[in-house]
């Protein structure tokens, strides 16, 4: 757990505070993302936690101890640190780079070697890179080494300063996903700095939105930030796609599904027609027990003796319960039936309509 208590920073030679009277708490095991425009003091705030920058006033508590209680270098060995430019040591091999903090802490050689192998695998690097030098690796690989190096001594706290800012969007999305998977396993207390609101929303358990001068405008889980922005600055910073961004944060299984116009495959066409008129659709879904067979146009049922004779078509896209409402919306707007069906394996769970998504956002 990290707690900032009325922390401020005024740099020498400046009359304005870079960070002014900032207080917030990072619960253990959560990712808190500091986000805001340039000049909002997010990096300064981060560096005050590991004392690369000393606060002008206020206190920072890490796991119940004042950060000033120990020498800066002792404190920093317990805090993982990842920066955008990575800062790998060019004269040391990948293995030596990863072993940096364990070596500073004086671990034995065997323990260090075992740990390096473990970390290489954890961050998804090839084992053969260990003897290479940083200059021989790609940007994405280097940043993985940077993360491995920060995790080496298994610090409870991790500080990440725009770690994925310098890699291309595809690699960045990949590294973000990997970080989520890693975090689900490691449960570190992470403070993550970015200027990218999408990255903040996608990674943060909580988002601290800072304004110029280190003013905390809102501190909330991403979903709350999007649903109930505290003021105009927050609204403006979140941008015009707030609704879409919120949809991407809500999982399908948190929304009540509709049963929809679905009938058993051995129902009569007449029954199917009555279900269709009940739901006001021009198509009907077909189930075999609760297995999803497909759907047919109402028009195709004319003259058919059974539903199966009308040859149900498979749904082009189906969601499972871990999908997000944003994915559901994508299915809704691209499918002929204008609904998104949700399945668990082959089992039909229900469907989502645009109206349902609308309700989910408004409640």
């Amino acid at each position, binding site marked *: 757990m990290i707690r900032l208590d009325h922390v401020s920073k005024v740099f020498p030679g400046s009359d304005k505070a870079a960070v002014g009277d900032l207080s917030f708490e990072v619960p253990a095991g959560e990712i808190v993302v500091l986000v805001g425009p340039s000049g909002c003091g997010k990096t300064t705030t981060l560096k005050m936690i590991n004392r690369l920058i000393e606060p002008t006033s206020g206190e920072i508590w890490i796991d119940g101890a004042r950060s000033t209680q120990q020498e800066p270098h*002792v404190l*920093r*060995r317990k805090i993982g*640190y990842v920066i955008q*430019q990575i800062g790998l*040591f060019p004269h040391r091999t990948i293995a030596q780079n990863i072993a940096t903090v364990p070596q500073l802490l004086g671990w034995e050689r065997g323990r260090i070697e075992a740990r390096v192998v473990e970390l290489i695998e954890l961050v998804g690097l090839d084992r053969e890179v260990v003897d290479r*030098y940083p*200059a021989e690796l790609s940007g994405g690989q280097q940043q993985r080494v940077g993360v491995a190096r920060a995790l080496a001594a298994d610090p409870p706290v991790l500080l990440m300063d725009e770690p994925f800012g310098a890699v291309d969007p595809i690699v960045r999305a990949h590294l973000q996903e990997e970080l989520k998977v890693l975090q689900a396993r490691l449960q570190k207390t992470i403070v993550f700095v970015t200027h990218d609101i999408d990255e903040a929303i996608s990674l943060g358990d909580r988002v601290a939105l800072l304004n110029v001068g280190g003013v905390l405008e809102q501190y909330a889980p991403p979903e709350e930030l999007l649903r109930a922005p505290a003021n105009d600055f927050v609204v403006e910073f979140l941008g015009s796609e707030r609704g879409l961004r919120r949809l991407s944060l809500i999982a399908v299984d948190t929304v009540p599904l509709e049963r929809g116009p679905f009938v058993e495959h051995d129902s009569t066409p007449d029954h199917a027609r009555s279900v269709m008129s009940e739901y006001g659709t021009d198509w009907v879904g077909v189930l075999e027990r609760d297995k999803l067979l497909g759907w047919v146009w109402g028009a195709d049922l004319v003259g058919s003796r059974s539903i199966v004779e009308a040859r149900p078509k498979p749904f082009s896209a189906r969601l499972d319960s871990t999908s997000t409402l944003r994915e559901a919306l994508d299915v809704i707007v691209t499918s002929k039936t204008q609904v998104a069906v949700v399945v668990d394996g082959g089992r039909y769970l229900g469907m989502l309509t645009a109206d349902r998504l609308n309700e989910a956002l408004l409640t």
Partner: protein
Amino acid sequence: MILAQTTEPFIRWSWVWSHLGLFWSRTVEHLVLTGIALGIGFIISIGLSIVALRYRKTYAPITWFTGVLYSIPSLALFVMFIPLTGLTVVTAEIGLVSYTLLIFIRNIVAGIDGVPREVREAALGMGYTPRRMLWEIEIPIALPVIIAGIRIAAVTTVGLVTITALIGYGGLGQLILDGLNRLFTTPLIVGAVLSAVLALVFDYGLVLAERALTPWARSKATIP
């Protein structure tokens, strides 16, 4: 005398073969004088560089002072110290050392200044103390630039050692001086050639040392 000059061959090989022992001892003396100058010069330079890096304001005065030393003609510098330290090896070394300082300090400071900012930030952020960072991170990364300085200083010093012959030292310089005094070209040429070879050997040795010490700098060239 004129007669002797005309009959004397350019190189009298019989004299060369009969004085191999002398050449050897002069070469060793030359090496020792050079080595001491480089060693002491480097140690002083490291100290002054650390001061200059920590207190930036001292860098200009330090380079000014060592620059003045560097610009004094070598013979004048040796003679200047004779009243203080006499015709001793100390006089010779004071002169030799003072010529290495500017070269060393400039390269050490430039090399360490060239260490990327993010490398320093990462090192401090992971818990290096500034002192440990200097020896384990900054100096190793600056090594190619520092060694470049050592190469220049070494070649310069090998040349300057010959001049200390004028105050009674000089290694191979003594052979040159002897040749000049006696108008005897053989030792003159042997001395000149051997000191040139020594300079080349130093230079090449340092190139090899650099390759061995900075394998990472070479691998840079192979980035795809």
